[in-house]
């Protein structure tokens, strides 16, 4: 820890800070929607923000890949014309937990692959990210420690850590530093503040531990062994295929592209919308064949898409442990429970081999 990378914001100045921040560009932060539900929305003052919140209904991906995004506008007829579009807005996102920052890191990797997603990549350059570290668990559905997302590891411009009377703020990028300079509200961090930060992190190490009894590095193997597991069948029987679990997942990025003409049949636009592998029509191809017709195959695919395939491709899990999929599932299909069942089943199998 280098002192010059840290500044301090007194809690009583928080509201002033937010007002100033909102003056720089449009500011997005978590707000309470009732019934312990939260959402990222535009805010102008500190009081609007829910500083203590569990992961929002939709993750911050809605700002990086809008759910209905124009890609082209065109006109038909003799003088046909096509114009490509990149819609973007300059934004600051405040208050992202480390799991949500990890989600954006995943999207960055997946969408930088060739063919690159230029719309996403262009848009992301206009978004500033200010993180807010969790000192304790949001709730029992989280599994962020298992996937290495409970502690900060980059991906943000500034990171706030709550130290009671004040926030300790880590400056990670030039745009982060710019915010500190423009708002003129932070104090230099002294060694006492940094000691406090060390203490908070030490304490966190006691609070957070693997939420499922397995070591991180053994997860890919577990999945290699579990493709034919009965656990998938059992989940498939319960799943309603409502698509909620993927729509709320910070690392799901599948989309569909459509063309629509105006009623005059002369002008139109090509746009993309979020899609979900859990929906029955998703894997339906020409001729009516559906290569993931059964629910259990679709659910299994979702889990392998989080814990197995990306490990080979990107050397990381595409689960951030945010727990959204579990919270949103009416059928009570729980990510932690599924992993627990897989671990248990796999252990039983090992025992049987020994007996």
């Amino acid at each position, binding site marked *: 820890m280098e002192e010059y990378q840290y500044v301090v914001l007194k809690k009583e100045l928080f509201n002033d800070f937010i007002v100033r921040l909102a003056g720089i560009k449009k500011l997005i932060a978590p707000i309470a929607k009732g019934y312990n*539900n939260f959402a990222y929305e535009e805010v102008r003052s500190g009081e609007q923000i829910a500083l203590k919140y569990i992961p929002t*209904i939709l993750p911050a991906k809605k700002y990086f890949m809008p759910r209905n995004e124009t890609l082209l506008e065109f006109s038909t007829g003799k003088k046909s014309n096509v114009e490509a579009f990149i819609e973007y807005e300059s934004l600051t996102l405040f208050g992202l937990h480390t799991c949500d920052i990890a989600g954006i890191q995943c999207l960055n990797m997946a969408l930088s692959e060739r063919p690159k997603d230029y719309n996403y990549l262009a848009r992301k350059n206009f978004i500033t990210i200010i993180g807010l570290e969790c000192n304790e668990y949001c709730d029992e559905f989280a599994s962020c420690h298992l996937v290495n997302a409970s502690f900060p590891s980059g991906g943000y411009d500034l990171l706030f850590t709550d130290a009671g009377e004040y926030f300790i703020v880590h400056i990670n990028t030039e745009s982060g530093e710019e915010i500190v300079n423009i708002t003129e509200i932070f104090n230099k961090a002294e060694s006492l503040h940094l000691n406090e930060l060390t203490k908070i992190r030490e304490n966190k190490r006691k609070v957070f531990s693997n939420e499922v009894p397995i070591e991180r590095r053994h997860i890919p193997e577990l999945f290699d062994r579990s493709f034919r597991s009965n656990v998938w069948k059992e989940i498939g029987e319960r799943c*309603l*295929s409502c698509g909620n679990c993927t729509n709320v997942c910070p690392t799901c990025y599948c989309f569909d592209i459509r063309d629509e*003409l105006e*009623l005059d*049949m002369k002008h139109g636009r090509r746009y993309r919308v979020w899609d979900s592998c859990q*929906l029955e029509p998703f894997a339906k191809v020409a001729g009516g064949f559906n290569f993931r017709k059964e629910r259990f195959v679709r659910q299994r695919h979702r889990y392998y898409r989080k814990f197995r395939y990306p490990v080979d491709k990107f050397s990381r899990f595409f689960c951030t442990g945010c727990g959204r999929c579990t919270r949103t599932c009416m*059928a009570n299909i729980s990510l932690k429970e599924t992993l627990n069942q897989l671990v248990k089943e796999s252990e039983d199998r090992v025992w049987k081999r020994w007996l």
Partner: protein
Amino acid sequence: MKKPKIAFFDFACCEGCQLQVANMGEGVLDVLAAFDVVEWREVMSEKWDKKYDVAIIEGSITDNHAVKRIKKIRKKTDILLAYGSCATIGGVNGMKNNFELDDIRKYVYGESYKFFPTEITKAVHQVVKVDYFVNGCPVYIPEFVTVLKAVLQGIPYYVPDYAVCVECKLNENVCMYAKGITCLGPLTRAGCNSWCINNGNICYGCRGMVSNPNEKSAQDILAKYNIPIELIMNKMNMYNKCREIV
């Protein structure tokens, strides 16, 4: 391009879906610019006895006269569009199918019930071929416009075959289940942009069920919330009773 001739017809229904078009505001001008409306009882008195390109059918088929009339319309039109829950899934009129036909006739018409023949309620596609479906009670105008565009282009329109929850989530509504209230969204076909939930109501299932609902699991979920299955079947039957005769 010559404007396609379009005609509206109503069968057993409340005509509320047609009213939706009348309520479209300026949007209706774009529709009128693209089509040539030749018959529409609710807004004009003219009748048209030649062929039309597009017939928009509102209402379900509930007696012999209706069967004859819809078959005649089918013969006179290139494209037939079922419009609203009554036409697409039988809708509220399907509740009649809960009873013996004679009982329901006596109940409605009293002593002289014999003079009022009736048949079990059917959705339009259960009687004649339907080319386009616009579900909903009432229809959701943005979807109707999308279907009209498909008609103009001569391409099919597929009613979404996934749950209302998809749209509901994207609208970031607090889920009714989180409030301890049951909602038919997980079983009902999307396409209305989760209209009711956006406005603080539950989904009543007016667009009909997805083609392959997980009924077993849905029942388990209801049990979890201590909701009697009959209550939900009643709710679902309010719009979906005709499903059983397909």
